[in-house]
């Protein structure tokens, strides 16, 4: 049979990435949705870049930036003791950047579509911005949060180029399922490649099906 480690690593990466993305994307989307700053278009463009950029481009620049020979990579290594290339931490960092639009876009749309007087109603009841965010805003954009979480998770599972560039192919450390498939095909081991592929196919199909079922209203009663 196949080695399960790449699959486990893939899901660990997707989980950790999604958690980090949630922490980063909620404030970022909130800012993007409500700001009147002139910097907004620039930030929106940066967030969307991974949608159109070849993953190898992102991976390449991250590799260059974080290599111990570069200023940033050297500083991270010497001062904080963090090595981002060819490590799991590096994979997480790259995946967070790469999946950012998949998390930010749905949540930003959720914020924008929320009736703004709901927020005002909370303010005039004396509630702070933070309390309003957690008690009123976020609970009312649950479908957008769900879409963001699941798309980011599924997208991270499907990563290849970025991961290969910055992480390489180190078993148990950076060898995720998509790379394992490539590896097995290279070694003409089609059976193992097929197993990895079919598992990824089934899981991503299941995940996306959940999004469409929930947001299409089929499972609405569970979210009320």
């Amino acid at each position, binding site marked *: 049979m196949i080695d399960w480690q790449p699959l486990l690593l893939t899901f660990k990466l997707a989980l950790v990435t999604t958690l980090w993305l949630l922490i980063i994307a909620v404030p970022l989307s909130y800012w993007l949705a409500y700001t009147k700053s002139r910097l907004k278009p620039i930030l929106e463009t940066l967030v969307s870049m991974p949608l159109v950029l070849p993953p190898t481009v992102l991976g390449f620049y991250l590799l260059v930036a974080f290599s111990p020979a570069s200023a940033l990579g050297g500083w991270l290594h010497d001062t904080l003791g963090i090595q981002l290339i060819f490590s799991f931490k590096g994979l997480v960092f790259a995946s967070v950047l790469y999946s950012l639009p998949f998390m930010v876009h749905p949540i930003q749309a959720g914020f924008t579509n929320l009736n703004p007087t709901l927020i005002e109603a909370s303010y005039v009841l004396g509630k702070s911005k933070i309390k309003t965010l957690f*008690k009123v805003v976020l609970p009312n954009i649950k479908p957008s949060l769900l879409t963001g979480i699941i798309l980011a998770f599924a997208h991270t599972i499907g990563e290849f180029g970025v991961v290969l560039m910055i992480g390489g192919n180190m078993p148990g450390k950076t060898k995720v399922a998509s790379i394992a498939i490539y590896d097995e095909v290279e070694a003409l081991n089609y059976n193992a490649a097929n197993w990895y592929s079919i598992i990824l196919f089934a899981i991503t199909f299941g995940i996306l099906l959940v999004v469409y079922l929930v947001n299409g209203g089929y499972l609405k009663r569970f979210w009320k």
Partner: protein
Amino acid sequence: MIHIALNKKLMAANGPMILDIDIDIVPGSFTTLYGPSGAGKTSILRMISGLLSVDEGHIIMCNNVWLNTKKGICLKPQQRKIGFVFQDYTLFPNMTVKENLIYALEKGQDTQIVKELIDTIELAELQDRRPDKLSGGQKQRVALARALVRKPEILLLDEPLSALDQSMRIKLQDYILSVHKKYKLTTILISHEISEVIKMSDNVIQLDKGRIHKQGKPLDIFTTKQVSGKFQFSGEVIDIKQEEVIYVVTVLIGTNFVKIIAEENEIKTINIGDTIIVASKAFNPLLQKI
């Protein structure tokens, strides 16, 4: 005394408009803002609550200064003790009726008030429902109750009844009046309905294009001095028909159609669609209980 002076340049539908008002309100009184759309009524409530910034002015709530642009004082909406009922209900969809009221409680506030309001505004049967399972009138009752939880110093009602049908309107007017009296509230209401304004208010401020046009007791505002009518209604002309030497004018007063006989010189200046006053001088109306 409550003193409110506001000045702000607003972008209205037909170009920029300067809103400039200066009003005194007696604590415990019921004031209505009346006037055409775009006169700045909603903006005034939003400025009092702190949701809209003010170019220049001050708001003095008895002994507390909420706003003084000269001294750079401007309390946040959260720091002003207001009850605000919005036109479109704005109940929190993720909370039940009771949870909506509980959310409004201040830190450490006695929860007794929630129970009391549920009784006063008769929400007991609805308290575990979500807002999307309520009718318009029910939603607005919940919104009213929620606005009162904090025991506001001033209650602001932004056309809360405009989306409701006539019978529901009257019921809600009674709820508003009863809580206004019970909690000794200072209330400002926005309304377009003359009958509502007369029923509810101690004081009317008629606004036009951001300025105070008239101010006073409701009956003084809406009855013109020229007619010493004992009996008068305003209505809309629906039809004018000539019958031999006289004219029959059909007028819509409230929800009733009334046919009135008129002479040629009377209808000279009246066209279909005009708002007119139907008044009678020497006239003894019959009163009958129904």
